[in-house]
């Protein structure tokens, strides 16, 4: 009996000793030291309630405790897709990743489901137009794409997603401008980890290339300069205005490696968190995802027009 009491007391002492503070630098996403006390902000060594020793079962709810609609602990509100205004102005700006619930003040018409429900990903090895389970039957949460402990990638994106190693560079590592992109090379790699069948980078893939027939025909090329490789047929029909700096019809789209290669990435046209774009025409009733705005940045097929300027 005495042994039991002793063990219980030791366990209690350890449990209390492991309860500590959340943040070292305004957020728990790095800045740890060898004797950091930041771990217990999210984890419990012996009294955890969720997977990975988290304090609660719902990972996304943990993230939303700071980054949710009230943004009570961050300037980044991913529910509404808003970046807190810089000092001197009250109006926030649209978050470059979009919002899960709202974007530009309107309800999202499509978004990644981070609720933790079992998730299939389109183009995840089964071909384009086919949704397949993630590796190991994993569900999608914020932590599927972001590493809350920080990473060497852009926007603390994970270095391994869906069993795929990811490298996503950032032009300026010190940049904190979440409303304007800082994309370097490989920005699409994060999307390709789950949607690899859509990650077509072959020159000329926009034309009827026989080599692509096995994967369902031609596909828009990704990772190429917006105005094409000189002389390739794939870029016939392009407009002359840079879609990022000039745009078309009042709309612009972000490009990677701005000012040097100006490449088109997945995120040039799609908002990874979610979008409020409206699908009112053909897209509203077409295909297996009728009415789904498929994370597109602009209404209907506005993203096509910004580059192709028809």
């Amino acid at each position, binding site marked *: 009996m005495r042994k039991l009491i002793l063990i219980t007391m030791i366990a209690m002492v350890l449990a209390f000793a492991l*309860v500590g503070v*959340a943040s070292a630098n305004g957020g728990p996403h790095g800045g740890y030291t060898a004797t950091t006390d930041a771990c*217990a*902000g999210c984890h419990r060594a012996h009294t955890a309630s969720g997977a990975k020793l988290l*304090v609660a079962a719902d990972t996304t709810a943990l993230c939303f405790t700071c980054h949710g*609609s009230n943004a009570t*602990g961050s300037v980044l509100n991913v529910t509404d897709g808003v970046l*807190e205004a810089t000092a001197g102005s009250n109006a926030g700006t649209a978050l470059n990743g979009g919002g899960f619930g709202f974007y530009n003040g309107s309800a999202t018409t499509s978004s990644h489901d981070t609720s933790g429900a079992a998730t299939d990903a389109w183009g995840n090895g089964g071909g384009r137009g086919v949704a397949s389970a993630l590796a190991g039957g994993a569900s999608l949460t914020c932590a599927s794409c972001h590493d809350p402990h920080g990473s060497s990638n852009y926007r603390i994106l994970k270095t391994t997603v869906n069993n795929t190693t990811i490298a996503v560079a950032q032009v300026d590592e010190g940049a904190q401008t979440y409303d304007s992109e800082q994309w370097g090379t490989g920005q699409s790699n994060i999307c390709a980890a789950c949607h690899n069948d859509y990650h077509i980078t072959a020159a000329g893939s926009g034309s009827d290339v026989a080599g692509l027939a096995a994967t369902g025909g031609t596909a828009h090329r990704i990772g190429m300069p917006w105005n094409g490789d000189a002389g390739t047929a794939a870029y016939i029909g392009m407009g002359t205005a840079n879609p990022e700096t000039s745009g078309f019809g009042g709309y612009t789209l972000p490009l990677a490696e701005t000012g040097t290669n100006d490449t088109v990435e997945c995120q040039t046209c799609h908002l990874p968190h979610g979008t409020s774009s409206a699908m009112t025409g053909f897209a509203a009733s077409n295909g297996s995802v009728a009415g789904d705005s498929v994370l597109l940045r602009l209404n209907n097929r506005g993203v096509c027009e910004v580059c192709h300027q028809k």
Partner: protein
Amino acid sequence: MTNQTPEKDLNQVETNPTEQTDPPSLQDLQEEIQAEDNKKRRLLLLLLLLLLLLLACVCGLFYRYLQKPAPLPEMVPLPVEINYPPHYLFSIYGIDQPVGVALSPGQERLYVAESGGERAVKIFDRDGALIGSFLPPRTTPGQRSPVYLDTNQAGRVFVTDRLQHAIFIYDADGIYLDSILGPDLSLSEYVAKHVGTIEPDVTYAYNLFEQDVYFKKGEEQELNFPAPDHESWSPLGIFIDRTGRMLLTDVAKEKNSIRQLPADVTMAVNWQEFNPPTDTFGTFGQGNGQFLFPNAAVPDSQGRVYVTDGNNGRISVLDSQEGFLFHFGQGSGDGALSLPRGATIDEQDRLYVVDAVGQDIKTYDVSGEDPAFLFAFGEWGLDDGQFNYPNDIVTDSTGRLYIADRENNRIQVWSY
């Protein structure tokens, strides 16, 4: 036993020899019995009186409880330290991700700010029955984000809005009255500059997303004015004391601070002349007197202000004379905080801090010179008495605690 009996008898014979030789008379015996009976009667009478006194005390306490319900230890001041956690009473449902709670001055109404669904402020009675709800005018759910709220002695409700960067003012029933757009500007003041005197039959609103001020007088055509220019801020935590003084936490990007606005602001009949002096304290950071997303600022009976310094995982204590005094709650061990958010102090100077990630309520005695950790209650879970990212708390004078249990979509009511 058999060996002791003769000895005892022998002793009795030796010590009381006269009893056997000189027996008491009948009269003596009767007097003795009478005296014994009288003694018993007196004892019974005394007992009866004590019982009656006790009954009177119980009736008195019961009557007092009916007049002003409160836990027994608080009604009967005992000369011992009361140090035990409250117990779970019941929950109020029909709320979408509540983040802020406040009571009306008479404590008969509970106001709850939602962060999900319609993002409305809902009104409940003490038993949890829904009375109504209200919203900032001309906003959609994605354009508003009510967080914390409080009431003044007149019953007006002041609600901070994270997306609109404003404090919306309503009457007790949720009728919109005005907005404080910045530390130096109210909406009615801005509108009055354009239209002159604001008459009773006008409506006006400002939506930060639309960057347009809307004004309408009676049946006349709607007017629009350009977005007002004012000092930027981002009000979050709000507390209004009985005198009307307002304490705010401001989480403007990299300019986190605590603001104090005078009672004139909350007790004003209207806000058409709005330029109150504001005491501002603190900067953005981790040092003493610095804050990282302060969520609540509440005063104790000594006049000290306790700030839940969210991302620094601590409580900072301020004084109106000396400014920053000290902080506590960082580190490990009893009373250590993970992510402090809403807070309240009861009439016994017990500070209750909602630890959103710790999934509990940590309680400190702040009546003395140094805060002392008393106890924590709650744990993560979905059952009664368990929390799933709680965010705010308010207490009433009867010992009830109302806690916004965000991810469980309910208000938990606890009591002593």
